[in-house]
């Protein structure tokens, strides 16, 4: 089995056994992507399409996009675009495209449109299914010398960091085989699923300001550092971005009152998230279809969602995805990154960049808005903290290097510090974070993935990883962060119920940094993250990140957003992954889900979905009972598959840096990373778990 699979490395995946509780033995299986066979008469018929007709399809596609500009002008003249400070603004910052993504996506969209003209003109009227038609189109190069072909090849041949198409573990799943989302005629609405899963009782329990500490053996519990590093890894490896109008303006799909727009203002790329209020007015949250990339070749029918991030653990979220962005982050002296407050905080945005990093409205008197390589830095105080730690770590290393190598240039210092910083980060993620998430056994299997041949093409981040599996951490976020800073004593373990104050309420801080950020404040946050138990990884999200009432929303619903995005990206339903990942084949009904999720949850899902076949991957994934690590078997399978690819990449593509330099810093682990880059007095050995008898605090002075 192994031997065979190595020949199919692109489809390589670590698979874990299914039944919960059993230990996982790693097998190497391929996600089955059985190629669609074209009937001979279909192939002959499609082969008869003349070059002139192929050109015409492309021209029609381009005409169609050009016609859309007129609608876009009308939208803008009616002020229908994302307004600063609106809900859509915060959401946009999560999916903010850079100019390069917009250009890539424009080309991909034109190819898609041309493809759809062919499909609608030739395949559909002849009764050729979308899948069959696409199988043909994926092998059909764009007409040589056509302007679109030229543009497309220029994109493919340009040096690219990031901006690749996501990879798929299973074939795409669209209404027409190409890009049309399954809608509410077939599936329950994204928002109604989110509302049905919301648990009022559970939420109010967590809203109250008291909490039992150390009541059981805390060594079993993850803390919020785990949650936050998970998000940090997501920011590094995947960034889906939304499509924009052709003039670059963001698309808005709801009106100012968070209601559905009139159809006349509906942009074709809109797929708003809707839920009727008690008077049958549809409340509305923005959703714009994700940007597209041209795929691996300049063929018809190969457009796929674009990943703006680099599919690698390289801290691009801190340093920037593009050279231009990276230059902006540097001081260009002594190898340092920009900072503020004497190096303690991330740099602040300049006036013209505020709205690309924070969701303040135009009249807000903004004092705080941080800048990093990724617009998502300000998504919460927690993410600000983690970005800050790695910024400090870079600058600390650069300063050390400077003191030892006085003659080094800024560039030398910068590159060396960056390489060390990334190496430390990778070690923390692969050696410490991954076992917490996947469990020791699976993590070890991932790290045992053999390297690939040096010339092997590296595979990209999987769509399933990016928009479903890695999003598990959102289920573990609390409404508020309690202030546990006063309780920072080595070995403290009293069973008192502590009266707690909150450092912040999450819903107030999303892309709107309102705290008074100081070095001390960040230490408080870090202290609390280390000692605050993460919420359970389950199908319940707290009220701060979902909107659970049929009333006008005043913040977004990330669960509904993720469900909608999974459908936008054409992911297969959950059960297909459950089947593909496990030994259990041929799932036949709801009761088969009970092998991996609590019956109570299965019953809840039955009320939401009419058919078990419809359950979205994300919802199935978060509903599974975690096994060993943090997540259930299906997410574990998808995450393991991805990290084994990452591991291969790291083995294949070593940074061009002196190994001795990296070795000098190889003793730095998570504990040291936090100690060295904060004012902490002590940090647990395992930074991803609550302190306990088996996870003792380490005094930072002892390091």
């Amino acid at each position, binding site marked *: 089995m192994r031997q065979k699979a190595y020949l199919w490395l692109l489809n390589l995946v670590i698979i874990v056994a299914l039944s919960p509780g059993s230990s996982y033995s790693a097998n190497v299986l391929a996600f089955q992507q059985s190629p669609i066979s074209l009937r001979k008469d279909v192939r002959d018929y499609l082969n008869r399409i003349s070059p002139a007709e192929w050109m015409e399809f492309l021209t029609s596609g381009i005409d169609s996009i050009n016609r859309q500009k007129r609608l876009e*002008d009308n939208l803008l003249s*009616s002020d229908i675009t994302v307004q600063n400070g609106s809900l859509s603004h915060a959401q946009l910052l999560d999916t903010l495209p850079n100019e390069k993504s917009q250009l890539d996506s424009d080309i991909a969209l034109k190819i898609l449109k041309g493809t759809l*003209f062919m499909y*609608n*003109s030739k395949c559909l*009227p*002849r*009764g050729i299914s979308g899948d069959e038609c696409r199988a043909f189109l994926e092998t059909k190069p764009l007409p040589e010398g056509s302007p679109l072909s030229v543009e497309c090849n220029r994109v493919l041949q340009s040096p690219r960091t990031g901006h690749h198409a996501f990879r798929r573990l299973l074939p795409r799943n669209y209404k027409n085989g190409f890009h049309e989302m399954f809608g509410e005629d077939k599936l329950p609405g994204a928002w109604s699923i989110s509302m049905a899963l919301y648990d009022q009782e559970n939420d109010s329990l967590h809203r109250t300001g008291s909490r039992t500490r150390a009541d059981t053996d805390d060594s079993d519990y993850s803390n919020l550092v785990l949650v936050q590093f998970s998000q940090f890894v997501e920011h590094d490896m995947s960034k889906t971005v939304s499509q924009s109008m052709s003039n670059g303006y963001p698309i808005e799909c709801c009106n100012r009152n968070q209601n559905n727009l009139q159809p006349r203002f509906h942009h074709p790329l809109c797929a708003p998230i809707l839920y009727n209020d008690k*008077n049958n007015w549809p409340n509305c949250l923005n959703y714009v279809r994700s940007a597209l990339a041209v795929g691996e070749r300049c063929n018809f029918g190969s457009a796929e969602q674009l990943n703006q991030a680099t599919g690698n653990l390289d801290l691009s979220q801190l340093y920037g995805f593009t050279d231009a962005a990276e230059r902006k982050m540097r001081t260009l002296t002594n190898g340092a990154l920009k900072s503020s407050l004497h190096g303690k905080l991330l740099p602040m945005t300049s006036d013209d960049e505020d709205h690309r990093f924070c969701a303040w409205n135009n009249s807000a008197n903004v004092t705080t808005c941080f800048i990093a390589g990724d617009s998502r830095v300000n998504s919460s105080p927690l993410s600000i903290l983690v970005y800050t730690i790695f910024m400090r770590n870079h600058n600390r290393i650069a300063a050390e290097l400077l003191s030892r190598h006085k003659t080094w240039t800024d560039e030398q210092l910068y590159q060396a510090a960056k390489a060390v910083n990334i190496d430390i980060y990778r070690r923390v993620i692969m050696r410490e974070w991954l076992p917490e998430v996947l469990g020791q056994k699976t993590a070890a299997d991932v790290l045992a993935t053999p390297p690939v041949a040096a010339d092997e093409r590296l595979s990209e981040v999987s769509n399933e990883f990016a928009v479903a599996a890695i999003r598990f951490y959102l289920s573990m976020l609390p409404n508020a962060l309690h202030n546990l800073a006063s309780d920072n004593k080595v070995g403290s373990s009293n069973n008192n119920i502590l009266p707690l104050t909150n450092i912040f309420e999450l819903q107030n801080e999303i892309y709107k940094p309102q705290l008074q950020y100081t070095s001390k404040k960040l230490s408080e946050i870090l202290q609390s993250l280390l000692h605050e138990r993460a919420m359970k990884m389950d199908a319940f999200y707290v009220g701060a990140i979902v909107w659970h009432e049929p009333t006008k929303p005043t913040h977004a619903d990330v669960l509904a957003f993720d469900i909608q995005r999974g459908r936008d990206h054409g992911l297969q339903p959950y059960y297909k992954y459950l089947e593909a990942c496990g030994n259990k084949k041929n799932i036949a009904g709801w009761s088969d889900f009970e092998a991996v999720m609590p019956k109570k949850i299965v019953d809840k899902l039955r009320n939401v979905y009419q058919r078990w076949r419809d359950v979205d991957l994300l919802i199935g994934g978060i509903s599974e009972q975690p096994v060993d690590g943090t997540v259930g078997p299906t997410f574990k399978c998808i995450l393991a598959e991805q990290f084994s690819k990452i591991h291969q990449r790291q083995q294949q593509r070593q940074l061009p840096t002196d190994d001795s330099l990296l070795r000098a810093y190889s003793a730095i682990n998570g504990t040291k990373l936090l100690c060295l880059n904060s004012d902490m007095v002590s940090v647990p050995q395992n930074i991803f778990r609550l302190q306990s008898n088996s996870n003792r605090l380490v005094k930072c002075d002892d390091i």
Partner: protein
Amino acid sequence: MININVLYPIILCCCLAAVPQVRAKHLPEYVAESANAIDKEVETYNFTSCQIYCYGPLLHTVQMAKLFPDSKTFVDMKLKASPEKTMELFEAFMASKNNAPTNDEIRKFVNDNFGDKGTELEVWSPTDWVENPAFLNLVNDPDLKQWGMDLNNIWKELGRKMKDDVHKNPEYYSIIPVPNPVIVPGGRFIEFYYWDSYWIIRGLLYCEMRNTARGMIENLMSIVQRIGFIPNGGRVYYWGRSQPPLLAGMVKSYVDFTKDDRFAINALEILEHEFEYFINNHSVQAKGHDLAVYRDSSKGPRPESYSEDVETAESFHTDEAKEDHYSELKSAAESGMDFSSRWYINENGTNIGNLSDAKTRSIVPVDLNAILYWNAKIIAEFHAKAGNVDKMAEYETKAQKIKEAIQAVLWNEEAGCWLDYDLINEKPRDYFVTSNLAPLWVKAYNISDTDKISASVLSYIEKNKLDTFPGGVPNTLYHTGEQWDFPNVWAPLQYIVIEGLDNIGTPEAQKLSKSWGHRWVKSNFAAYRDSRAMFEKYDAEKFGGHGGGGEYGVQKGFGWTNGVIIEWLAKYGHEISLSNTGAAGPNSRFVSLLGVTAIALIGAFAGRFIWRTWFK
């Protein structure tokens, strides 16, 4: 020809007068078989319920509160008390709330004083419905034949009859009482519509439902008798606008099917009346010729889209400018193409802009004048049947004059097609709109020019790449978001274009006509197979995809779409086969009539096919 100046109708102006209103006259005796003695004097017919549903403070207050996602909901609700009493209650309500009620208070007022929408109508199964109309025998393909049967069944879902109370207490309703049951378009359109009825009636005739068809025509004629013209649809709030005047076309369709010349002759007076009335109230002069434009005679925003209109009027700063804007919008509604870049004239004289650039009243439309030409021809033809030689000559002359005006003002040699004419900038509007081809449909051109016109129009079609769209000819090529613009395709205009190309008779035009006709049938079928619905509008870029845009969601039903398909199943059914393609293998089309009927029996859609697996 008659009058150049605008003659705003006096009849309905009293509708604007403040309360107290004179109680409406009793309905005249409904015309049945004979339609004599139409009073040429314009009758004053006053809809008492207009103070609630057409204008006034109550309408304004309720509609601006935006209680319902569709603004049309409120104006279709029934009154619980008389209009006068309701207005009194409303005034008291406003006084009690210091003239500033909250939306919840307004909602309560509406709930207290109005009943549900549409309760005045009950579903009516046409009594002359037949299970297997003969046109089905003309359809070879079994799936298309079953579809034809389904469409015939849908008439039963679209039939509506007014409850007796409407005739007894019309002032409690916004519906305009008519004597006979009707077939409605469907969806939010729960009452009859004027030009929709043309294609509906033709569909009914193909389905051998002559009584239903005649009843609908007689309804329209009774309205002409009562108020002089036919409003946009069967609601009092459409009181200031008509729609493309196709009553004569409907009568002609009926007479062509039934050979009932008597009916044609009896209709003459009403047809003449409607024709003269329309001309009187819509004429303009362009390049020294008399032509017609769309024009509305009421005041205020469209009651059924009130807040929407108020919002687009916000860009105008004086009451007069706002009122002008409302007029442009309602005139566009009269055209049936509400809304479209077709009606925009911006300050540069182009069609780029949005609703605030609507200048409908200053655009001479090709289709309206072609239809008026056809009206005159039909009236002349009916007079010939009656042996009224003088009258026949009179209307032939009128038709001739309209044709000359169309040729002189609207035909554009350079474009090779007819074009709407911009009265403000005194220039043709060289923008593609399906209605540019309307003269072909009614033969409003010199027959001696046939070959030349055919060649010109075909090259116009080529130039605009109209044959590249898999889902039909889009209404325009301008994607504005309005529903009568790109990419929407509408059955009636598809019909006008395709029948027009057929009518001109050259082999090339007929070849294109047939290819487009087949495509339309197949594409509509694909949409129906996938969604089991017939749509109000379709999407030019998609084979089997429905349209969007405008101010309400896409509607299903749908009267005129069904009518067109039924007619074309009869026309093309012997030559279209869904499976006879090079691509479809023996197992690609496996739905046999028997097999699917078995599925249908156990399916939720009794009497309908389920095509889910077709094409797979």
